[in-house]
């Protein structure tokens, strides 16, 4: 039950419901939680995205694969507002037009991103990194007088447990290992309680055990969040994905289960050479 129907005591007519684009009321009744249609981006004539269309359902875990230059990172840049496409549309639910929002607005609406290169704040402690990510009013004034409530503190401690960093919550993030930084950043995503998590190369630099735990973690998150994971490691993708999208030269080459995709002759062609 969404907050609006709670207040009204009955399910509101559709027109009312779609007029509300407040947090917690993202309209997904007519389809995907995130979709982009015919999106094109070019840099100096090079088409990074070429009429790309992609639909992400609520609660699904989608893996994106594709050779270098296929447009995976550009796609995330477009969704999070870092890059403006030349054409096309990107919607969050049915009603929120992401192309009209900037990065902070998109993040506050509930789309969060883990970067390819782990980007944590080295000068702050692990705990403080999570505190900054915590879902809260992020205006200057509220930040100045911000105080952690007990629930928020518990929440941070829960996430610390989840990402296995409880032991070093007071350490500076700068001294963490590469794998731990990756986890801290995933933890920062969790703190934001996003609807959609965009996860760029989560296992780079991790040991085997760490990779296994990351897979478990990501699997446990699907359902509650929609996840879009970009990864090169095929074995890892196989271990987590139910649906895989293959990108090539800025468009969707094919979609399907890992087995379907791996047996697709076009995919084999793209990965095992030929074109270049």
């Amino acid at each position, binding site marked *: 039950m969404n907050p609006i129907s709670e207040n009204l005591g009955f399910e509101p007519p559709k027109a009312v419901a779609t007029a509300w684009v407040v947090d917690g009321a993202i309209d997904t009744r007519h389809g995907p939680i995130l979709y982009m249609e015919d999106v094109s981006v070019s840099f100096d004539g090079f088409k990074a995205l070429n009429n790309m269309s992609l639909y992400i359902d609520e609660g699904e875990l989608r893996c994106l694969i594709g050779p270098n230059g296929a447009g995976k990172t550009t796609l995330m840049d477009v969704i*999070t507002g*870092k890059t403006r496409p030349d054409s096309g549309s990107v919607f969050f639910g049915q009603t929120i037009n992401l192309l009209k929002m900037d*990065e*902070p607005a998109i*993040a*506050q609406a509930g789309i*969060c*991103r883990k*970067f390819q290169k782990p*980007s944590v*704040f*080295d*000068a*702050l402690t692990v705990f*403080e990194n999570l*505190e*900054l*990510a915590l879902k809260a009013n*992020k*205006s*200057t004034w509220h*930040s*100045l*007088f*911000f105080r952690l409530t007990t629930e928020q503190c518990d929440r941070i401690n829960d996430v610390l447990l989840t990402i296995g960093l409880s032991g070093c919550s007071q350490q500076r993030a700068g001294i963490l290992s590469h794998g731990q930084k990756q986890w801290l950043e995933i933890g*920062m995503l969790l703190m*934001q309680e996003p609807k959609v998590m965009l996860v760029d190369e989560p296992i780079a630099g991790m040991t085997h055990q760490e990779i296994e735990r990351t897979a478990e973690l990501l699997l446990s998150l699907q359902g509650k969040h929609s996840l879009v994971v970009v990864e090169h490691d095929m074995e890892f993708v196989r271990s987590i994905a139910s649906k895989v999208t293959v990108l090539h030269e800025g468009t969707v080459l094919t979609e399907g289960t890992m087995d379907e995709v791996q047996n697709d002759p076009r995919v084999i062609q793209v990965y095992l050479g030929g074109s270049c």
Partner: protein
Amino acid sequence: MKLISLASQDKTTSALLTVLLLVSIFIPLCNLLTAADSPLHFSAYTVSLIGKYLTFALLGLSLDLVWGYCGILALGHGAFFALGGYAMGMYLMRQIGARGVYGDPLLPDFMVFLNWKELPWYWFGFNNFGFALLMVVLAPGVLAFRSRVTGVYLSIITQALTYALLLAFFRNEMGFGGNNGLTDFKDILGYNIQSETVRSMLLLLSGGALIVAFLVCRWIVSTKLGRVVTAIRDQESRVRFLGYRVEMFKLWIFVFAAMLAGVAGALYVPQVGIINPSEFSPLNSLEIVIWVAMGGRGTLYGAIVGAVLVNYSKTLLTGLLPDAWLFILGGLFIVVTLLLPDGIVGLLQRKLKGQMA
């Protein structure tokens, strides 16, 4: 109460606060209570000099907040100091009343000299001390807000800004006294500005303002806003993707620092007795950066130590070797940049740690 508990958090801070308190209470007391020939007596000159150092320390502190914590290298911070100084200067000019050389009850001397018939609109209200104080904070605040602190060229733009103000304030038509600036002040709040009591009070106020500003800055950097600002310094784009409006945070910290600089300027002017356009000189703004870099950036107390030490050496050396000062300053800056990346404070801390180990 919260500020006091913050103050006692670490030894460096409490040591610094003790010294500042002692200086701002002990020196005025000695000046007022002892006879002129007593060994404990400080001359009026010394009192004003130390008061001046304290205002510079406040200025350095405010720059450290934007540069050391937010990573904005503002090369025009002196502009806000000068603006605060002008606001105070305008109040002091209006207090002269009919005692000026030309004896005009309304117009300051330089306006009579320029043959102006009435007071420009922006001079109204400055006969009221409260209004002047408000302007001390507002004028730098509004200007800082207008400059929309974003973009890569900020350092150059702030430098250009202070230079533009320098040229503008040089013009007689601006109505701020042109080349000569504002001077010949008589009294402040009805008390003779030259008297030893007022000078001692100004020193006490400068010390008090510095202590309060230091504690407030300490508090700010300890809040979540402070941590967001530090995060912006290190990874600006990441902060944006966490949902923070980076430009609002930069603006907030920049405006707050500009206001502190304005207060420093307002305390500086009655102690030196003059404010003129040369305070807008880009060189002044660069010097502030040097104080902070030498003291140790991103520590708050480093800026205070740096400002006082550099200015003390300046007083000492411009007396002994007037021509060599700029070379020495430049040399010191190079030495600090190359050998002491954490400034004097960083060096001392490393020494102390070395002894403990």
